[in-house]
């Protein structure tokens, strides 16, 4: 583990109200994640991976316990503060890419910078730089519908990386990709992790992803079963 702690979770519980009563999706999680980690939350479907990532990403709040991300306790943030945290410090990558279909590749990647109110020349420089990392410079003017799945996910990564966030949260990023594309994307992310020291947190049950992880947190029924450093 690296020296400075970015994410610190203590006795975290997430209980969802259901039609039949309550459902405990996370049941007492304790963990810390430091700078420049390349960590995966691994477990079968329904084990609570997405719920955990959503809380770290301030899209959801803990029912009990604490989740402190970049020095801010998620429970204490109001919606505006949570949005500010996501806007300035966090990047998201989804299984289904979630690109905005009416916008070009350039515009999709530009969007987070518009929210940060950067000026046009600065935006252009950062977008082009990010597209270059992902090898997308020749697709600038394409619309998502004209791209392959692998290319779409690259655009999504470029969008997450463009503002150089502290933490990137990637929920099943390879689930819709074939093996070649999955490896390709993972290699790029490893490289970004090395060069920019961005912290990556995955939620996955894909062995291809797991093979790139430097740390594997195994989750079952909302509990951490194992937390191991992987040395390749």
């Amino acid at each position: 583990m690296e020296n400075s702690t970015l994410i610190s979770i203590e006795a975290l519980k997430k209980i969802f109200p259901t039609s039949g009563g309550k459902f405990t999706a996370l049941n007492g999680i304790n963990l810390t994640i430091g700078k420049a980690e390349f960590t995966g939350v691994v477990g079968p479907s329904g084990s609570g991976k997405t719920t955990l990532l959503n809380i770290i990403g301030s899209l959801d709040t803990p029912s009990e316990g604490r989740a402190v991300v970049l020095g801010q306790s998620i429970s204490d943030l109001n919606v505006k503060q949570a949005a500010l945290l996501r806007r300035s410090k966090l990047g998201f990558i989804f299984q289904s890419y979630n690109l905005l279909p009416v916008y070009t590749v350039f515009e999709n990647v530009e969007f987070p910078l518009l929210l940060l109110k950067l000026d046009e020349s600065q935006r252009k420089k950062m977008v082009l730089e990010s597209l270059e990392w992902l090898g997308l410079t020749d697709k600038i003017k394409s619309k998502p519908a004209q791209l392959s799945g692998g290319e779409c996910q690259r655009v999504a990564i470029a969008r997450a990386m463009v503002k150089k966030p502290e933490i990137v949260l990637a929920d099943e990023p390879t689930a819709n990709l074939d093996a070649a594309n999955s490896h390709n994307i993972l290699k790029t992310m490893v490289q970004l992790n090395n060069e920019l020291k961005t912290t990556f947190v995955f939620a996955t049950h894909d062995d291809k992803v797991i093979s790139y992880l430097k740390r594997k947190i195994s989750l079952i029924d909302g509990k951490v079963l194992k937390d191991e450093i992987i040395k390749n």
Partner: protein
Amino acid sequence: MIRFLFKGIFRDRQRSLLPVIVATIGVMLTVTLFCWLNGFLNDSIELNARFSTGHVKIMTAPYAKHIDQVPNDLALTGVDTLMKKLKSDFPDITWEERIHFGGLIDAPDKNGETREQGPAIGFGIDMLSGDKSEIGRFNLVKSLRRGRLPEKPGEILISELFSQKLKVNPGDTVTFIGSTMNGAMAMANFKIAGTISFGTIGMDRGSVIIDLKDIRSVLDMDNAAGEIVGYLPGNYYDEAAASKVVRRFHMLFPPSNDEYAPTIVTLSEQNNLGQMMGQIKQVGGFVVFVFVLSMSLVFWNAGLLGGLRRYIEFGTRLAIGEDYSHIYKTMIYESILIGIVGSITGTIVGLTISLYLQNHGLDIGSMMKNASIMMPAVFHARITPLAFFIGFIPGLLSTVAGTALSGIGIYKRKTAQLFKELEA
């Protein structure tokens, strides 16, 4: 940011084209209806002003009170001096003396016995003095159906319908039977110079038009007139200008004990025209209100459907770091844009239709054969300055209100829930 969103909305036809079309149609209907109401109001006012009320009218108080019975025994007297005073004190107002009268028109056979007879509504107006302004005001040249206009005393015009009813033609002689100003029986023969048809319901049945001098001598009304009508410069009725004339008149003719002293009323105080103007304005307001309401419902629903389509977009934008209120605000901005574009196109289309209706009109005469009120038989639209803006009320209000309502539906969902829907 705004530019970015507007780029998106124009690329997404379902979000731009359809709402713009809906807004356009609603705005177009509002503008057209508004212009049409205005035209109807304007035509009715103009028609009444020309034939009946003037922009202001001077009568004796008792005459005004019983005006329906055309009580010429209560007419203004000493009209010569009154007219001179009016012309010098109100140089920009056009004053005309008129005598309205009732009576019978009798069409005799060869032996002088009554062949046909009918009640007449008479207009005594100046046709022979050389001043053609009353001829113009009654639109006599264009309304002439057969024969010609009167050229010398003893000649009259009667309405075409009336001539058919009496089976008389230009050149025939008819007898007018009525009562003089003093209550005696009046009887005179007139030669029909021509027939007229005004295209105005109520004016085309039993009208008889006689030169003012002629009717004065028949009714014993020398130097008298039932009414003096006044027309504002520009021949356009303006309530404020008319009221100004009234105020000035009251200053120049202070109230006196003479029961037959001249009094003045404005157009809106006659023939229920003021009430009609008020009602038409209310109808106009109601039309706008109905369009705002119904279009808001359409946009509310369209917004909800659009919101469903845009869950992925909203969820993603939330994740990227927008907050709800910002997304909500941008939805409102989008609706304002749609509203403005729809209002502009709708106003352009509506004004185009109205311009056509203003120039060509819509003939409702055949639908209104039996109406007795004085109403134009051809409806014209009339474009007023307000017509350029009125459409923006339903155009903008409905798009924004509809979006605001549907936005609340989306706004109420919790972040995580929206996000879950996004995952699925």
